[in-house]
């Protein structure tokens, strides 16, 4: 499989009367997005705004972030199985509006959506303060049931990314990232002495606002499955998630999965990167045993020497993470885990909900309860009051002057457990 991502660098963003890209400036005509999304009868209203790095703008409550792209060669434009017809992803040429992002906002039913601050103190805690954000506020038809409401907003965000991505169809750029890999046997013949490595990506799979989707299939319904890394980089995995904002994997982060990219960078040098196993995080004990056994079995069947396991969310999925780790280590497969911690405001509490002595190599992406103080914004996109009910906020945490105090829990992507951001924890 060979996937080429042609990166068209977005270095400025504006609203205007047409959709166009010139010398780094991406111009968005809100009406084009509004008309496109209102094709869905469940979408009642759409507002489009922009937020640029450095703007004193706060975006809240954020549901998903998506990278605008268009596939110009090969099968599978858009998000097959969700917004477009089913086609095989992972090969071809994709034009990427790199540096731009669709950010969807709008109240749903949950308490899990997050905050993005584009400037100052808040900016350093989220990777999405450095993207040029096209903020799409979606309200749905009256009387829509919560599950349909979530689906409507999820799909509207993906559709908005496709609409904006179309701007890039005829553009070109010298910067092309190539992701190419033969089948497992070919790669192993090429690199017979390199250790064979798999990446296990765990996906929250717990019901409304807590599911990932693979080619449109709810991850709740699957057995752990092997997927080519290119498929995920090409849009096969999307977020239907509003777990705590800090560590949910947004669609953007699936499209740019940092664990996949960093493993790819070592492929053929230090390791033989064989593929990705997507593993649902189920809530029942039987489900956990089934998926953890099955994941370990896939790793063994494929002859892995080493595995990176990334978690999504915290609490009960800590058990899945450590169960998979134990099974692999007991089979002689070396693991590295990526997780975050719930160590409390003071950092004095035990960080995980479960423990196993086999987990000797763990990367910590930060304490979700770390408290940050965010100064008032000049402009708020969305509803600043939402912080009172977000995971990581509380009633009274928004001050009259617009400043607020919240936990990293509420900040999108801050403690990303696919290692997308650069926080860690030190013992003091």
């Amino acid at each position, binding site marked *: 499989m060979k996937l080429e991502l042609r990166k068209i660098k977005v270095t400025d963003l504006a609203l205007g009367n047409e959709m166009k890209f010139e010398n780094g400036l991406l111009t968005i005509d809100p009406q084009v997005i509004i008309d496109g999304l209102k094709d869905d009868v469940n979408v009642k209203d759409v507002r489009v705004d922009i937020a640029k790095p450095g703007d004193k703008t706060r975006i809240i409550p954020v549901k998903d972030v998506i990278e605008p792209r268009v596939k110009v060669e090969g099968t599978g434009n858009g998000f097959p199985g969700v917004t477009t017809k089913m086609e095989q992803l992972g090969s071809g040429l994709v034009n990427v509006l790199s540096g731009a992002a669709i950010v969807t906002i709008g109240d749903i*039913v*949950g*308490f*899990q959506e997050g905050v993005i601050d584009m400037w100052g103190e808040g900016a350093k805690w989220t990777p999405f303060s450095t993207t040029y954000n096209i903020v799409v506020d979606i309200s749905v038809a009256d009387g829509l049931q919560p*599950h349909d409401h979530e689906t409507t907003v999820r799909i509207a965000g993906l559709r908005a990314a496709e609409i904006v991505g179309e701007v890039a169809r005829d553009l070109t750029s010298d910067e092309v990232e190539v992701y190419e890999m033969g089948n497992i046997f070919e790669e192993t013949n090429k690199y017979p002495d390199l250790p064979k*490595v798999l990446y296990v990506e765990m996906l929250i799979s*717990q019901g*409304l606002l807590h599911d990932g989707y693979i080619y449109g299939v709810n991850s709740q319904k699957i057995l752990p499955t092997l997927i080519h890394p290119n498929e995920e980089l090409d849009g096969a995995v999307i977020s239907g998630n509003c777990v*705590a904002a800090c560590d949910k994997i947004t669609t953007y982060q699936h499209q740019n999965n*940092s*664990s996949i*990219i*960093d493993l790819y960078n*070592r492929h053929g040098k*230090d390791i033989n990167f064989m593929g990705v196993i997507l593993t649902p995080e189920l*809530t029942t004990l039987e489900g956990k045993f089934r998926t953890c056994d099955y994941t370990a079995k896939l790793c063994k069947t494929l002859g892995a*020497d*080493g595995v*990176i396991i*990334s978690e999504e969310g*915290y*609490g009960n999925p800590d058990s899945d993470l450590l169960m998979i780790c134990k099974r692999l280590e007991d089979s002689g497969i*070396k693991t*590295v*885990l990526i997780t975050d*911690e*719930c*160590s*409390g*405001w003071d*950092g*004095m*509490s*035990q*960080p*995980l909900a479960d*423990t196993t002595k086999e987990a000797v*190599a*763990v*990367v*910590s992406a*930060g*304490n979700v309860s770390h408290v940050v103080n965010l100064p008032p914004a000049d402009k708020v996109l969305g509803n600043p009051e939402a912080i009172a009910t977000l*995971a*990581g906020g*509380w009633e009274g945490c928004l001050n009259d002057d617009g400043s607020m105090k919240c*936990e*990293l*829990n509420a900040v999108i992507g801050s*403690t*990303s457990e*696919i*290692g*997308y951001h*650069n*926080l*860690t*924890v030190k*013992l*003091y």
Partner: protein
Amino acid sequence: MTYKVLYYVNQFFGQIGGEEKADIAPILKNEKIGPAMGFEQLLGGEAEVVATLICGDNYFNEHEEEALKFIIDAVSEVNPDIVVAGPAFNAGRYGMACAGVATHVFDELGIPVVTGMYKENPAVDHCKAKAIVVEVSDSAAGMRNALPVMAKITKKILKKEELGMPKEEGYFPQGKRLTVFSNERGSERAVKMLVARLKGEDFETELPMPVFDKVEPAAAIKDIKKAKIALITSGGIVPSGNPDRIQSASAQKWGKYNIKDIESLKGGYYTIHGGYDPVYANEFPDRVAPLDILKKYEKEGEIGEIFEYFYTTTGTGTSVGNSITFGVEIGKELMDAGVDGAILTST
């Protein structure tokens, strides 16, 4: 303005005497005695040791309550900016006295404390979470090396400068897991760590596995038909409007609500929990906290009675530290009310 330091030593370093004087009661002297003299020089004029507290090691350990009362009163009276104790090296009783002073001064007066101990001194574990405990050698021969480190840290604390990593500064980790920025994103660190493991090279985990407490289950209820049963949930079920403003994640409090006169939570309650699909719980909150079934059992005589208050909080992301506090507080109320058993539901 120079900062005020109060120094604590035992009878030996307080120049009163050796083991034969170990039972002297605490005294406060408005002068610098023993290590306090050298310590003040190391502060370079930025702070002054205004008084020295001296207490016999045996006295402290055998009359801790009286000793602490005197010491806390004395510290309140002197009202220093910081208290420095020891260093106690590997001395067990002296270490326990320094630890006792450190934890009580910090907890009761909120005054920071710096002390010094040898790594195997059992007192380290008693106070390292509250005080800054500098790692020193096992005997008084290490005094000359210990004091500069203690003085440097003391000055930083007085000037409200951030302390560096425990290893760099020379103190024992307090057990605080602080979030900091790394030069590399998490995935890069993970791949590096895996490659190191596969090559058999050294690597350091960023998260040593926690050690869990084990809770002994209570004895079985002898007669369930007479038992008073309480209902508790971490599923975030609260009265509509969330009157006590319990957080939807990382709870900082719990609530209790009178359920004496209702047959079910339906209608008046909903969930504010941020970690699960709320639709079905909002439809029928008894799915999370089964009051309806308990009421039925109560009527049918299957249980004695239901305790009139229902306890609730949010489990998701709530720190174990907070959970322990909630558990102790709720447990005490249930004990006081003569509750025999509780149904705890999580989500």
